């Protein structure tokens, strides 16, 4: 009798489809990290004195810190002196329209299925594209400008809106926060900045596509989004990276600030190169994302679909300071082959009647290891606070793992905390049942996985939900039916 090959294993062995590398001349500085390098980065970006000082303080702090080891992920030591901390595509003169953008760069976006022109015309999305470390194309800026919305690269914000940057930079993730965030504070090269003024509802989804490209370039983005009183903004972040053999460090920081009655919705679809089937190569994604509901009745909502990276270390969190403020976290994390993900959230309840919701879906296939780590902390001041957490794990095959570490810290008797968790397995029985009804194995797996993730996909903006399903499909199989 022949041994039937498990259909799940066949699917789990599909190759990364977005692997390519584009040849664009890059302007890099020598590898390594010291005060000189930081001064050089700051000088190249023509930064005001306060920025340089902030970077240097962060660097000095970083020298005293140790890389964290508590996460359930394993990787060889990173040589921080071997990393190039600044790399920008060489520009002849700054492109003012898409016509002036390097055609090779535009082709790269096209391969990813996100041609800027099309986005601009069809989807009505303003894209601030971060290619390596410098923004090369910004669209819809004028339209947003009329509403008083500032949406630009971080470098531009430093030049044109230094007061706003100075006021909010580090106000949610201080430069002393953690090893990776502190490193980012010292060396970050660019990112996105958004400010929505009082009472303005941003009329379109703001979106940024990230890409890691130049050889051995650690990418250190910094994103800062501020929604002033009564403002609303929905921000999308999505990325895929080209095939690469050496591990690449990515240590981004995202800070969100919501003032009274403001709402920020931050959605991510992440598909960085996860490494090959043996787990070689791939991106190390060590990211600090945190939002502060500073004002009363404010709301911050994180939605993430994580399918890429060799290692993901990421805990988008909410600090609920304002009374009646709301924090949400919806997450799908998929690990395949030798991918490792340690992800989750922190909800810190400080204000009265603050509420938070956590829905986490972990999918493990191949040898993937998926860890949910979440903390719900309810302080004494947070009378009437409520939290609901739900963590579900789906296993495909028998070589993967799912781990759940929920921490609850409740210092208040008037609060309510609920936690639910489940683990299930995609069985050959389920797949066969679908096939007997005429569905292909791929369609069956995709249907089962989508069913599992439905509660999270529902939270994504429509067009992003489609992309998320596509990426999830690609990560598990050839196509989604």
């Amino acid at each position, binding site marked *: 009798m022949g041994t*039937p090959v498990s259909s799940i294993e066949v699917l789990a062995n599909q190759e990364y489809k977005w692997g390519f590398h584009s040849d664009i001349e890059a302007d890099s500085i020598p590898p390594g990290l010291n005060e000189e390098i930081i001064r050089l980065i700051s000088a190249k970006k023509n930064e005001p004195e306060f920025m340089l000082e902030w970077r240097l303080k962060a660097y000095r702090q970083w020298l005293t810190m140790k890389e964290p080891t508590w996460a359930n992920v394993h990787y060889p030591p990173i040589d921080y002196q071997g990393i190039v901390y600044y790399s920008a595509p060489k520009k002849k003169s700054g492109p003012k329209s898409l016509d002036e953008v390097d055609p090779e760069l535009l082709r790269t976006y096209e391969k990813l299925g996100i041609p800027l022109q099309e986005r601009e015309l069809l989807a009505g999305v303003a894209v601030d594209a971060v290619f390596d470390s410098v923004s090369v194309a910004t669209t819809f800026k004028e339209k947003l400008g009329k509403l008083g919305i500032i949406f630009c690269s971080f470098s531009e914000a430093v030049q044109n809106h230094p007061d706003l940057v100075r006021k909010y930079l580090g106000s949610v993730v201080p430069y002393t926060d953690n090893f990776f965030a502190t490193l980012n504070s010292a060396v970050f090269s660019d990112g996105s900045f958004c400010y929505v003024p009082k009472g303005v509802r941003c009329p379109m989804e703001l979106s940024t596509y990230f890409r890691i490209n130049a050889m051995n370039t650690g990418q250190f983005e910094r994103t800062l989004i501020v929604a002033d009183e009564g403002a609303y903004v929905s921000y999308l972040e999505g990325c895929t990276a080209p095939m690469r053999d050496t591990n690449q460090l990515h240590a981004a920081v995202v800070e969100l600030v919501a003032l009274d009655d403001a709402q920020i919705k931050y959605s991510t679809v992440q598909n960085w190169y996860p490494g090959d089937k043996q787990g070689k190569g791939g991106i190390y994604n060590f990211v600090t994302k945190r939002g502060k509901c500073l004002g009363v009745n404010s709301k911050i909502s994180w939605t993430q679909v994580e399918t890429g990276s060799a290692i993901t270390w990421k805990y988008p969190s909410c600090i609920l300071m304002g009374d009646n403020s709301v924090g949400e976290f919806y997450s799908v994390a998929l690990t395949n082959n030798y991918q490792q993900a340690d992800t989750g959230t922190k909800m810190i309840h400080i204000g009265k009647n603050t509420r938070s919701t956590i829905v986490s879906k972990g999918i493990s296939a191949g040898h993937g290891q998926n860890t949910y780590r979440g903390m719900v902390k309810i302080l004494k001041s947070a009378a009437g606070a409520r939290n609901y957490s739900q963590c579900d794990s789906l296993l495909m095959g028998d070589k993967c793992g799912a781990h759940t570490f929920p921490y609850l810290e409740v210092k208040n008797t008037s609060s309510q905390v609920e936690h639910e968790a489940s683990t299930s397995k995609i069985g*050959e029985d389920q797949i066969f*049942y*679908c096939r*007997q*009804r*005429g569905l292909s194995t791929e369609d069956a797996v995709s249907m089962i996985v989508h069913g599992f993730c439905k509660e999270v996909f529902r939270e994504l903006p429509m067009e992003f939900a489609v992309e998320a399903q596509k990426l999830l499909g690609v990560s598990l199989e050839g196509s989604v039916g």
Partner: protein
Amino acid sequence: MLEIINLHATVAGKEILRGIDLTVKAGEVHAIMGPNGSGKSTLAQVLAGRDLYAVTAGEVRYEGQDLLAMKPEDRARQGVFVAFQYPVEIPGVSNMYFLRAALNAVRKNRGMDELDAMDFMTLVKDKIKSMEMDEALMSRPVNTGFSGGEKKRNEIFQMSVLEPKLAILDETDSGLDIDALKIVASGVNAQRSPLRAMIVITHYQRLLTYIVPDFVHVLAEGRIVRSGGKALALELERTGYAALEAEAAEPARV
């Protein structure tokens, strides 16, 4: 429509089917009876294409094609339907979404247009009623939290929507009380047609009171040991399977 010739199959190296011969024509209803472990469900699974079972000899022709060479989904798309003994639960996937995807896979194969959600609902509304199913079951996840009876009814309901050419009902009566059995049986009878063949696998004669077969075959030790008309089922009800199992020790002639 279906011709099974000298079919042998093993699971985990153990031979379960030891030379099955069976011919089923369009419009016929064949009952396959037999004691536990005789190979009834294995036969259904092999015809459906489950890869846990290895076919070691013999062949199966379906509408002139080599059925065993076809993938399970291709068999389904070409009109082979199995109502499972233990229908599987699929959490998070609505019954309606699932069945529409299945129907569209079948329709695509027949060169028909795919149905959108609205057209689909119109199509299935009456069929839900005739199975006396709660419409709310359509928006619930596939078989999840269904009672045993609801699951079986759901299988026959799916069959009525997919309109197969060859339907194989694997112990559809097991776990049903008499009222549910009658509903399921009338659902099956409503689908009898000169163009459709059915293989009804059951342990008990009871089901065959409601679904009256044209032919009855008795399976024992992986072979068909007796074939006859509907009277054979009644005879078995009186005599039991024991006598036949003794016969099975001898090579059978059918």
